[in-house]
């Protein structure tokens, strides 16, 4: 019963966050709602016994991908269109209890899991080991392809997001320059070596 109640609450938050992302005008709030949604799904992964994926979800999605999103939104969209004077505050206030509820759910979940019977799958520690083994045996080829993909994506991002084409082209001035300077957080160092 406990697990079912927890599921319903998490699912409710996930759906509400998804709806808010889609329906609200404000892009930054949308990104934060997506973080909430991703966190809910991570909690569901925990309930399903997929510990490795729950961690990866938090680290990769909520940690890396969404930070990139929020960063891009903040940097790219001029403040006026983005955050009107009044909705900003109320929504930020609303986001806090949502985050709190999520935290509460995570705690409830952990407590519930120790009491509830273990799921049908393997034990949690085995789960991580089993995926690791799989990645480096049966799925070795896709794993290597992923690394090629990440390399290609990195080269592509440098190509597209790099601001200066070379010494011949003058750097833009004023607000634009600050945008350029900060728009590529991971780009600046390899850029020098690729050029």
């Amino acid at each position, binding site marked *: 019963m406990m697990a079912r109640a927890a599921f319903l609450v998490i699912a409710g938050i996930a759906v509400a966050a998804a709806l808010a992302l889609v329906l609200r005008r404000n892009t930054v709030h949308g990104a934060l709602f997506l973080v909430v949604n991703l966190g809910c799904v991570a909690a569901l992964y925990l309930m399903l016994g997929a510990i490795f994926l729950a961690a990866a979800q938090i680290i*990769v999605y909520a940690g890396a991908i969404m930070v*990139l999103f929020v960063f*891009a939104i903040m940097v790219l969209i*001029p403040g006026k269109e983005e955050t009107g004077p009044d909705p900003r505050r109320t929504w930020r206030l609303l986001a806090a209890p949502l985050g709190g509820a999520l935290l509460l759910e995570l705690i409830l979940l952990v407590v519930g899991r120790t009491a509830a019977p273990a799921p049908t799958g393997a034990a949690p520690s085995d789960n991580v080991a089993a995926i690791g083994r799989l*990645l480096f045996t049966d799925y070795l080829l896709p794993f290597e392809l992923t690394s090629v993909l990440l390399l290609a994506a990195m080269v592509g991002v440098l190509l597209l997001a790099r601001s200066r084409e070379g010494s011949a082209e003058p750097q833009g001035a004023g607000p634009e320059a600050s945008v350029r300077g900060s728009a590529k957080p991971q780009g600046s160092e390899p850029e020098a070596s690729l050029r």
Partner: protein
Amino acid sequence: MIPESWYLALSAVLFTIGVVGVVIRRNPLVIFMSIELALNAANLALVAFGQRTGSPDGQALVFFVMAVAAAEVAVGLAIIVAIFRVRQRLSVDELSMMRW
């Protein structure tokens, strides 16, 4: 235990919301986030399906979907940055190309 069908229903709801977001929104960044929502729903369904077999195949597939999504996000945001460079000071909402 929570029935598998609950997870699948939730996954379906999230996927639907994501697709609806792609259709109704005009801002490329929000469309992009809606796509991530839909991908995530697919991942949830995969993990839920994988639970019954007890084999980590489904979870490995989710791992790859996540890695691919990371590359996709980096590329997509770089494209959006490039657009902003060309059309300085323009809100992304105003892009004319979003006529399908």
